[in-house]
């Protein structure tokens, strides 16, 4: 059974946030004051980061980058393979990614099933993550199974994975359709899975793409275990010996030796240069596809100059999320910000206007200091609590930290540093930032939007306020 299926890029980018952030109505907010929170509370919230030591970083002979997180006395092990999917402009399609990920999960899982180890597919921004979790005594066996799986020269199981993906892909919701279309407009890539295109994939091309995706020169391996890195060297050496990337020839592309760069897309994208419901308005994409009611997704990319910008973008999303269904995916120097809204049958055009107005209102509002602290506290707390409930897997948090770090040396401290930066954000600074980046009417241009799951009548009514493409 497929535990996690390939979704459109939106879910790949923001799987952890969009669904969890959905709110149908604004929460009741207690009265807050514009004063600084108590220092002790701020310090305590700022300490909500994993207490991991500096990881042991290694680069294997085959080009694979490894990070070994040692936890003395632990009872579990986690092995996470991070596979970037959008590194090249001619990146694999959503169907290829879904089949390759399912093939890897299935092949790895069947080799470690008897050891009580489970393998799951998770999605990060511009990447797929495969994670094996189980008792600490099975670490060597899990790495050995990974080696066997990746060393296959002729991955015969791809056809089986294709069949499973075909069976498991559900009918797409209007939210998924709208989010995928908006993201496609913003980033120029399409990682949505279309059942009709799955069968059209040639077996040889699929195998070739599999080898390209699982090139160790592009991947990153993160291990969290009570075993010391020194004791795991031999198994990693065997992994490097058996798992080699395709021969790129003498002119082959040199691999990147920094995880923070490996996992970030380097495709140039062109901002739309337009706003929403403004003088130079972005044409609305209307799509009838998608089950469920009508859904509007509007969004933009936000260039992030550094760690301070990343912290600001996260806090702004947390504030917006208290009133809207807002999500953000941060990956290095770019963030994708999306807002989803339901479109009713009665007056869809007013729903469209209200969604834009609501976001613009939030962007122009100065938030009290205590509200900022509450939002940061909730975000930082929920992050560690979720990690605890999901098996105390440090590799998942470390993967998040890679997205927040500028250099490999800064990954270990990235979560704590990000927390400190969020707690230090002043209301005035946030207001200026949101006015610039989150106001779809008067802020920086670069917005895109899509309405999906709407019939012809609703589309015509929406067109009264938002011109269509």
């Amino acid at each position, binding site marked *: 059974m497929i535990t996690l299926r390939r979704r459109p890029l939106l879910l790949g980018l923001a799987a952890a946030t969009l669904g969890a952030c959905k709110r149908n109505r604004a929460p009741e907010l207690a009265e807050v004051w514009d004063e600084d929170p108590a220092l*002790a*509370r701020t*310090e*305590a*919230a700022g*300490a*909500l*980061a*994993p*207490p991991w030591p500096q990881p042991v970083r290694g680069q294997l002979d085959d080009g694979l980058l490894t990070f070994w997180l040692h*936890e003395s006395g*632990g*009872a*579990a092990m986690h092995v996470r393979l991070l596979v970037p999917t959008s590194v090249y402009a001619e990146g694999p399609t959503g169907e290829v990614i879904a089949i390759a990920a399912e093939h890897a999960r299935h092949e790895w899982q069947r080799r470690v099933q008897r050891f*009580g180890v489970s393998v799951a597919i998770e999605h990060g921004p511009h990447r797929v993550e495969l994670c094996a979790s*189980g*008792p*600490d*005594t099975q670490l060597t066996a899990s790495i050995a199974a990974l080696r066997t799986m990746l060393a296959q020269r002729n991955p015969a199981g791809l056809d089986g994975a294709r069949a499973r993906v075909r069976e498991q892909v559900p009918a797409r919701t209007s939210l998924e359709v709208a989010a995928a279309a908006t993201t496609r407009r913003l980033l120029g890539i399409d990682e949505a899975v279309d059942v009709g295109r799955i069968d059209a994939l040639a077996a040889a091309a699929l195998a070739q793409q599999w080898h390209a995706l699982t090139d160790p020169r592009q991947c990153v391996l993160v291990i969290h275990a009570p075993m010391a890195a020194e004791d795991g060297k031999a198994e990693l050496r065997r992994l490097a010996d058996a798992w080699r990337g395709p021969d790129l020839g003498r002119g082959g592309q040199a691999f990147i030796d920094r995880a923070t760069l490996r996992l970030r897309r380097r495709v140039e994208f062109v901002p739309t240069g337009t706003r929403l419901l403004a003088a130079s308005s972005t044409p609305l994409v209307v799509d009838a596809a998608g089950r469920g009611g009508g859904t509007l997704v509007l969004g933009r990319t936000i260039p992030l100059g550094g760690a301070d910008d990343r912290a600001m973008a996260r806090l702004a999303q947390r504030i917006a999320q208290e009133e809207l269904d807002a999500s953000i995916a941060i990956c290095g120097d770019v963030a994708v910000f999306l807002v989803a809204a339901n479109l009713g049958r009665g007056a869809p055009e007013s729903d469209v206007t209200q969604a834009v107005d609501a976001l613009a209102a939030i962007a122009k509002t100065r938030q009290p200091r205590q509200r900022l602290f*509450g939002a940061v*506290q*909730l*975000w*930082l*707390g*929920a*992050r*560690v*609590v979720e*990690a*605890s*409930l999901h*098996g*105390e897997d*440090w590799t998942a948090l470390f993967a998040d930290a890679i997205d927040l770090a500028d250099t490999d040396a800064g990954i270990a401290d990235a979560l704590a540093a990000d927390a400190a930066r969020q707690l230090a954000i002043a209301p005035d600074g946030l207001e200026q930032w949101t006015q610039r980046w989150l106001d779809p009417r008067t802020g920086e241009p670069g917005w895109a939007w899509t309405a999906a799951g709407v019939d012809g009548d609703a589309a015509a009514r929406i067109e009264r306020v938002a011109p269509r493409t």
Partner: protein
Amino acid sequence: MMPAVGWTAPTGPAAPAPVKSAPKGEAQSPADPVPALPPAAVDVANPPPAIDDTGEPTPDDDDTSAADGGDMLADIVLPCGVRVIVAQDRSLPVAAVVLAVETGTEDDPNDAPGLVHALAYHLLQGNREHAPGGITRMVHGGGGVAQLAIGPAQIRYESVLPASMLRESIAAEASRLRAPTVSAPLWNETVRFARRDRARTWSAPAALRAAAHQSDGLRHDGHPVSEAVASLSERAVASHLAERFGYDRATLVVVAPDPPDLVLNLAMAAFADLPAAARVARDRSVTPRRGATPRTATTQAQAPGTFVWPIPGDARVQAWATVVCGAINRLRRVATEPARVRVRCTIDDDARRGVMIVRASGADDLQTAVRDRLQRVRDDEGGSLAKERTVVAAGLRHELRMPLPLARHLARARPPGPTPPAPPLRPADSLRGDAALRSADATAGVPGDVAYLLELGAATMAAPVDAAPGGGTP
């Protein structure tokens, strides 16, 4: 009257706090993620001698060895009657706080089924310090999760939250049972919430579980809230709450990154203003029945060939029951058995009222078929017990690495007897079922107090309503 306790805490906020607990290596390193803990009010690492009923100091059996190394936990009964268990988990800055109250649906009065279930929900409605739903909102506001578990003999208020909120959470749990707000509108809301709750599905019929545990209260579901309960007056609700939900029958379990002695001091401060009270919570475990043949219990359910053994509320025995059950399932049919004979074992897990269920079919004499299997496990045929013990111990160790499962597990600790545990700081393994399975004693086979699980005479057997001799028992 002041109960006889092995440890005394300061009686109020004004109590002197001269002693700081001694640092013990890594546990109190400066890197500990939660600052701003209060100064230790007492030296729990070096407690004064425990006092027994006679006023004489009692020997500290394992104190020295325990304090010298390895993880420790704190286990103490405070003067107000609440038991506090604190363990440490440094993996993430996350804490689990569980308030377990030793009451449950089996305590429902005959004329008010669903009472305890509804009362448990009502304790989410706040008190003088917290608005209705306030404690839950506080946990959610900090990024944590909160939930309620209602069982036949234990009710737990569970929360997992960032360690930065530990102090607030302990204070909230130390306040939850105090003078809960009672009003007609709130009670109506409580009943509405409680009625949405779905009952648990048990493998064994209720009549069998009731007979095995010798508790008539287990015969009813306990989840549906009756009209008699819904129509209770405010005064009656308050009276029932005070009677059934007191700290003298509660256990606060905290698993946090901080050293147990520091967390224990937080808890002691939170409970310090409660008056002294004798602990009411009792061990409900039944003495296993001995004999050659199982007793019978009538049941409406179609359960011929079903045998049930009670599992007491004790993590160690529960772990052993899982081992025994697994060992039974490891056995293969022998040549002398008919080909259609099937014997399978399952566990209805519960903190206090769990049962081991063996179902046999395909044999002319089901009792003999089960008796033979039990004998083969006693004989440790094929080393099945040892294999299963290893598997169960490893599984438990893996599961208990996280704060919430560990806190739930510790809440299963057998209620202390008249003499509470002493000293308060003990090896962390002392209350863990997996540690019991890994101990040197475990290699010798099933311990004496668990051996009844391999005796057919200790079981209760299902009988159809019209087949039980004398109408069944009890």
